[in-house]
Structure formats: structure tokens, C-alpha cells
């Protein structure tokens, strides 16, 4: 993965087939045999999906604002979180809950954020990570900046960022590649290619055979993996992160997955996406193949599945209860939007903050 020759080849890696069997004829990494670890990660994938379903239901019943579902991305997301060390830095886009949960972000944090509560951005257990980044691709440059700081401080830390297939068309992403290349940054950039940039299909985004090859322009190691294969995602992430940590430069990983959900709860994908395409994508989704693999390996069974779903559902409900309790019984003051944004408030915002503070007390009348 450190070959920088002028060959312009983007390798594709898949180790776990859709049938739950390891792919024949390729050298499967050792982690495929670490069933305890894979089981732990599978359980997090299950919990993430249960959480996701609940969050959509909360939005539909008026208890949550617009929410971006992670349905279908669970393997890729969990692998990203699992490959990182605690001291590394994650700069997500806005649906990588599996990675965030692994790194200590609470489910209630996610709900508070999408509920418009600043406290959701204040990760108690993942304080080095960036918050969600809705503007598209700007997080790549945030991560590049963090990586540069690590390098200047000579810290053995790595910054990881995720961008969508659509986001990879943005200048911010290409600038991050250039910065990573110019400064030899400890940075891993993931293109989460879920085939749809809201309603724009991958085929209309550009004519490049892969999106990963954009990294080649910066001389970065650039590969594709099956984003629905937890083993491939985890292996690629670990290789990339350790290379970056060892000062061997940045890596671009294009994870090939599929957005099984609407773009967000404010979207209706049936208006632009063919049903048969979605149906075919469900056959390749990441959960069932891993469950089959674990079951065939004797590490998992239906009783465990059932017990875990019950336990994880209770965890999800507890997070929902905490969220509802916070917004109903412990609401934030309106000044929170100022206080969470700056360490020291710029003078022009001091006045606005005072105005905002008076506003609810005066019942909106001045």
C-alpha cells in the first residue's frame, strides 16, 4: 500500500463475500480469524442499526429534527472507529454514527445534535474529535489541519476524515489531498461512496473509473474496498492508519457501499431512485454476511442475536429517554449557541448574546 510508482492503479479489496464465506484465492488478513473482535464489532453494527431506526421514528413523530440515516453503512463506519486509537482525531461528515459510538460518542449526543441542542456537539468521551460537518467536504481540511498539528508537535497521532462520493467533487477534498501530499500529513481520507449524492447518482458525478484515483493526483496511496465488508474495511483502515502514523504519508480509501435509506428524513429517494437498484443493494448489505460468517464460525447464534437485540434496544431506549428528559426538563438557555461556539466571544457577538439572553425573558417583546 505504499507504492507510489507512476502506475495509476487502484486496487480493490474484498475478503468477506455476500454469502458469508471468505473470498477464495486472496490472502485474507489475520483479523478475519479474530472472532471475538469481529463479534464485538458486529454487535455495535446491530446497535447502530437499531439506533438509526429509532432516530427516524423520532423524527417522524416530531421528536427530532432532520436526521441523516446511516442505514447500509454500518460495516464501514464501525471499521473506521475500530481502527483508530483513542488519541487519534476523527472529523466525520454527518452519518458516521458507528465510528463515533466506537470512539465514545453517546447515542444521546447524536439525538441532542439532531434535536438542535448544542450539548450534542460536546462529546464527553471523545473530546478530540470534531463535531458533525454538514457543509460537505470542509471536514477534510479540518482533519488536514489537525494532522499538520500532530506532525508539528511530533505526536504519533493520526487524523481521519470521511467524505461522500458527492463531497469528493468539492475543492475542499482536493485541497486536503494536496495538503496531505505537500506536508506528508498523518491523514487518512475516506470516500464513503454510497452511490448517491442526495439525488445525483455516481454515474452523473464524473467519468472517473474510481473516486479513489483522485488521491493519485497528490501521490497518495489510493485504494478501493468493499464498504459492506467489515473485514476489508477494518484491514484497510488499520494499514492506512499505521502507515500514516509511521510517517509514510496519507492514504485515500474509497469504501464502496450503498445508501439504503433516504438521504435524510427530509428526502424521498423513491422519487429519483429505481426500486430494483435498491432491492439489489439489500442483497449486498453489510450485516447479514457478517452474521452468517460468525454463525458458520460458531461465534454467534440466534439466541445470542435475540438477546443482544433486546439488550441493545433497551440501551437505545435509555438514550432516547435521556434525550427527551434533557430537552423537556433541562433545556438549554438560548445563549448556548454563543457559548459553545467560542472560548472567548468576539465583541460584536457579546451584544447579540445579551440580546438573545433578554429575548425569552421579555417573552419576545421589547
Amino acid at each position, binding site marked *: 500500500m505504499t507504492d507510489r510508482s507512476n502506475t495509476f492503479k487502484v486496487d480493490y479489496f474484498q475478503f468477506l463475500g455476500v454469502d458469508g464465506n471468505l473470498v477464495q484465492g486472496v490472502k485474507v488478513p489475520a483479523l478475519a480469524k479474530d472472532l471475538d473482535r469481529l463479534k464485538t464489532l458486529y454487535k455495535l453494527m446491530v446497535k447502530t442499526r437499531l439506533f438509526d431506526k*429509532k432516530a427516524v421514528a423520532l423524527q*417522524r*413523530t*416530531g421528536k427530532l429534527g*432532520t436526521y441523516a440515516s446511516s442505514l447500509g453503512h454500518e460495516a464501514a463506519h464501525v471499521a473506521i472507529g475500530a481502527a483508530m486509537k483513542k488519541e487519534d482525531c476523527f472529523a466525520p461528515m454527518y452519518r458516521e454514527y458507528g465510528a463515533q459510538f466506537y470512539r465514545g460518542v453517546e447515542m444521546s449526543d447524536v439525538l441532542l445534535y439532531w434535536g438542535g441542542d448544542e450539548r450534542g456537539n460536546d462529546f464527553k468521551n471523545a473530546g478530540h474529535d470534531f463535531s458533525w460537518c454538514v457543509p460537505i467536504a470542509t471536514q477534510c481540511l479540518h482533519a488536514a489541519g489537525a494532522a499538520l498539528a500532530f506532525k508539528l508537535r511530533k505526536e504519533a497521532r493520526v487524523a481521519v476524515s470521511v467524505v461522500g462520493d458527492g463531497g469528493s467533487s468539492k475543492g475542499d477534498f482536493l485541497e486536503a489531498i494536496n495538503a496531505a501530499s505537500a506536508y506528508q500529513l498523518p491523514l487518512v481520507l475516506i470516500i464513503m461512496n454510497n452511490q448517491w449524492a442526495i439525488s445525483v447518482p455516481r454515474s452523473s458525478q464524473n467519468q472517473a473509473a474510481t473516486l479513489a484515483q483522485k488521491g493519485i493526483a497528490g501521490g497518495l496511496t489510493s485504494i478501493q474496498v468493499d464498504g459492506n465488508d467489515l473485514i476489508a474495511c477494518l484491514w484497510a483502515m488499520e494499514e492506512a492508519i499505521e502507515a500514516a502514523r509511521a510517517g509514510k504519508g496519507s492514504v485515500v480509501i474509497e469504501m464502496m457501499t450503498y445508501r439504503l435509506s433516504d438521504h435524510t428524513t*427530509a428526502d424521498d429517494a423513491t422519487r429519483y431512485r429505481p426500486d430494483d437498484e435498491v432491492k439489489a443493494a439489500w442483497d449486498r448489505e453489510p450485516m447479514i454476511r457478517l452474521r452468517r460468517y460468525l454463525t458458520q464460525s460458531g461465534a454467534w447464534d440466534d439466541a445470542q442475536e435475540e438477546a443482544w437485540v433486546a439488550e441493545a434496544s433497551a440501551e437505545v431506549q435509555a438514550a432516547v429517554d435521556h434525550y427527551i428528559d434533557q430537552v423537556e426538563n433541562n433545556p*438549554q438557555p438560548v445563549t448556548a449557541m454563543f457559548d459553545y461556539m467560542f472560548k472567548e466571544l468576539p465583541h460584536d457577538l457579546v451584544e447579540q448574546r445579551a440580546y438573545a439572553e433578554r429575548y425569552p425573558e421579555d*417573552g419576545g*417583546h421589547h
Partner: protein
Amino acid sequence: MKTFHLPDLGEGLPDAEIVEWLVKEGDEVTLDQPMISMETAKAIVEVPSPFTGRIVRFHGQAGDVIKTGAPLAEFEVAGEDNASAKPKEKPSQPGTPSGETSKKRDDSGTVVGNVEAGNEVLQEHLSSVGEFKMTPAVRALAKKLKVDPAHCTPSGKGGVITAADVKKAAADGPKATPATAKTSRPSAVQPSPTQATGEWEPLRGTRRTMARAMSESHQQVVPTTLMDDADIQAWASDEDITARLIRALWAGAQVEPGLNAWFDGDNGVRMVHKSMHVGVAVDTPEGLLVAALRDVNQKDRSALRQDINRLRDNATNRSIPADELKDYTIVLSNFGKFAGRYATPVITPPCVTIVAAGKLRHEVVPVLGGVEVHRMMPLSLTFDHRACTGGEAARFLQAMLKDLALPH
């Protein structure tokens, strides 16, 4: 009993239409079970049950449009604590909607928007999705100056009320009582005041479209109306009134083409049409329709009459094709077969002109050497003063009167 209110299913959506209930009244349902399919302006979404319990009553059936925040279903929830389920009611404040929508609800249906002060947040929500477009800062200014947005004339792009509009309304002084006007505005589902004997019913289809179009016109257009009488004494008794009016419109457009035009105020552009498609206002029990007669300037009297007859038949059968309901370049309203002499007809953007004919009458007119009694047709012409000058409109009308005065 718990009431589930329709939440905003998208981002700032005013309402949603029921596509289908996935459960029946009386059904036992569980939390998050698919309950109803709703269509918003953006999407068809499935709304799950917010409770585990029994559905006692629906507040609408397939095809009904439910306003955001209005009740959708009543639930009987096991182990329900009646005391805690009672809404925490706050007295309505001036300038806030009264009743149902301003209460903090027991189902936490608006928990997201309700964190600080239910009244304020909800009012902001209503005005942002309702008839007033204004930024939060301008809304705050309006509150500060005690100006009802309904009394502001929007000057911003796309009908947005600006700070200047609010200040102007404040300077113009109080009109009516804004707070009362607002407070007494009932939602479609609220119990009527005690004296009322009817029931609020949602507008549908043509009538709903009419309400929106008229409201849009009112927000955008700067209308000015000219009125005059056409002397049609020279006409034969069986003259085709509609066909003559249409011919007169074209006669006007040949003198002043700028009235047979479309105007786009947002982009500051207009399109003067080389041909004329006359939108004919048709009164139906469902509401007002405007159907187009195409290329009237290229048709002789009999072809025109055929088109008019076809339009009448289609309107009667309620079978006007959708593409005949748009893309007209000028509008004609012939309301005068009933009653009414002059009117101030309303323009439908992007058109800039509407001409309305009132009830024919006989009138004493001075002629050389004495007086005569002539048949007269009262005409009212409204033009959008953003797009046309008064002179242009007057010359257009003059050309119409001249053409209508001809015997044939």
C-alpha cells in the same frame, strides 16, 4: 387520552396529506409500528405510532390535508397518568395564536422546537411556514414594534417582508388590532366560537389553488385599475360578446404590446408575447379556474367560438386538461352576466393584465344635437404597475373601446 399532533415531516412544511392509514380505529398498536402514510410537498413518508396503546379516533381520512401541529389521532395509552397527560397550558399572550397550537402538548410532539418557551417557538414556526416570509430578526423587530406582519407590504425578493417594511407599517400607525386578528384566526380543526353555526372545512383542489394564487398575487403585484365603458350600440343583438372582447384585447395589444406580457419581478425581466393566449376565468362550484384559449390573434370568429364552446363544455364536465390551465398571456373575466358593473380584478402572475367585463346596461349618452340611449359594456382593466405604465394601460383600453364600438 393522548393526542398525537402532526409534526413537521420535512423542514418547515405547513401541512401534509393523508395517503393511507395503515391501522384502523380501535386497533391496538405498539410504539414505532407503521401507522400512517403521509404525502408532503417533498415526500411520501411513513409515520410510526408514537405510543403503545389503542387508537381511539382518527382526525382525518385519506385525501385530507392536515396542518402541521394539528391533531392526527387520539390514543388510549395503558397506565396513562391523566394528571401528567394534561397539557401544561399557558395563557395566550397578545400576538400569539390561541388555543390548541400554543399549548405545550402532552405528547411532546414538538419537543425539539419547544425547549424554551412554547408560545414563542410555535408562533415563529407558524409565521415561518404560513403566509408571512420574514427572517427571525425582522420577526423580532415586528414584535418589538408591535406590528402585525399581515399589515406589512413585502418588498423583498419572493414576497419577503423586510425590516424596512416593518418600520413603514409601524410608522403608518396601528390598524385594526393585530393581536386580536391573529388570535382569533382559528386553525382548521379548532372548535368554533360559540356563535358560529358552521364547521371549519379544509380547502381542497381548485379552491385551495385559488386561495394560494390570490394570496401570491396580493403579495407580489402592484395593481392599478382603470374603468371605462365601451359603447356597443352599433352591435347586432346576437353579437358574440366573448369573441368580441377577445378581439378587442388583441386590438389593445397591437397598440400596447407590453400589456400582453409576463413579468418576473424577482429577476427584473419581462417577456412581451408576439402571440396572445387568453386565459378565461371560469366560475365553478369548486372554485375559480382560468383556462387558456390559444393564439387568439390567428383565429377567425368561428374558430374562436369553437374554442370557447369547447372550454365551456370541458368546464361543465370538469375535464379541462391540465395544460390548458396554464401559460396564458392575458386574462379575461366576464362576470357581468350576473351582476356588478365595475371591479378591481386580480392579476395572476406572471401575467400583467386582466380585463373584466361587467353587466351590460343602457345609458343616456350625449350625442350631437341631443341625447340617445346606448347599450354600454363596463370594462375594468387591472395592470401590474411594476411592469406597465398608466399611459400604456390607458392606450390599451382606448384601443379596446374603439374596437368594441365597431358594428362587426
